[in-house]
């Protein structure tokens, strides 16, 4: 079966990603650098990533680069800050005797193309203050918002999605 050049390089990339992720999980689970455990881990990761790397082609993971790594780290930090903010926000709304909520369902748009990028965006929105992804279709997301600030689609997109999207756009460009 002949393969085109880009497809083969995609598969090689997926193979390396999967190999390193499996190896890190193995190291975290065994928590030891003893050569016997380490070599079994390398062997298992190699076999699994050889078998499974084809299945990850449709995710369309981008090639690795310094800029992407830097943006991924920045994205993780922003996500953690937003998670803490989300918790304090919900705690405030729950404890407050009058419950200052103003719930509603709004629609936002995303410019991201890959499914994996959209999934990360939707999950990040779920974890951030007061917003929650109900459904996704193409480039449109249905969002439940506990404190609606704007019913307009473009404004809502700016308030909810933009803080993550600017990182994801660079990572998956």
């Amino acid at each position: 079966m002949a393969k085109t050049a880009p497809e083969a390089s995609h598969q090689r990339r997926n193979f390396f990603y999967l190999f390193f992720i499996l190896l890190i999980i193995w190291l975290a689970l065994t928590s030891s650098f003893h050569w016997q455990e380490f070599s079994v881990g390398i062997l298992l990761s190699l076999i699994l990533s050889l078998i499974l790397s084809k299945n990850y082609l449709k995710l369309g993971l981008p090639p690795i680069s310094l800029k992407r790594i830097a943006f991924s780290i920045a994205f993780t930090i922003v996500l953690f800050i937003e998670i803490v903010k989300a918790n304090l926000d919900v705690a405030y709304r729950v404890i407050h005797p009058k419950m200052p909520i103003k719930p509603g369902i709004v629609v936002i748009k995303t410019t991201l193309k890959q499914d994996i990028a959209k999934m990360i965006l939707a999950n990040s929105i779920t974890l951030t203050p007061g917003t929650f992804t109900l459904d996704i279709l193409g480039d449109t997301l249905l969002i439940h918002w506990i404190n609606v600030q704007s019913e307009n689609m473009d404004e809502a997109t700016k308030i909810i999605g933009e803080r993550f999207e600017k990182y994801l756009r660079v990572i998956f460009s």
Partner: protein
Amino acid sequence: MDVFGVAITGVGIIFLFLGNFGVLRLPDVYNRIQAGTKCTTLGAFLTIVGVGIMEPAWLWKALLIALFVLVTNPISSHAIARASRKSGVSLCDRSVVDKTKDFEEFREKT
């Protein structure tokens, strides 16, 4: 180190408690899921990491479990929310806007 771990676990438990409190107080399914997702994510995360800090031998395993919770929690609550929307659970009276119709029209167009 023990005290630090206990403190982190304690903060996690406070967030879990607030999440439960929110599930009791908020008016409808969607708002309850909001409280449920957010507080359980950080609460479970901090509790597990705190246990990892108390027992340094478990730290890496605990971090792995915490990461797993962090990744899967939004997906499971998204599935619950989507299912309740499909089965026609309505919003509470205090809701100000509902764009579900726009979304369904868009679905029919494509």
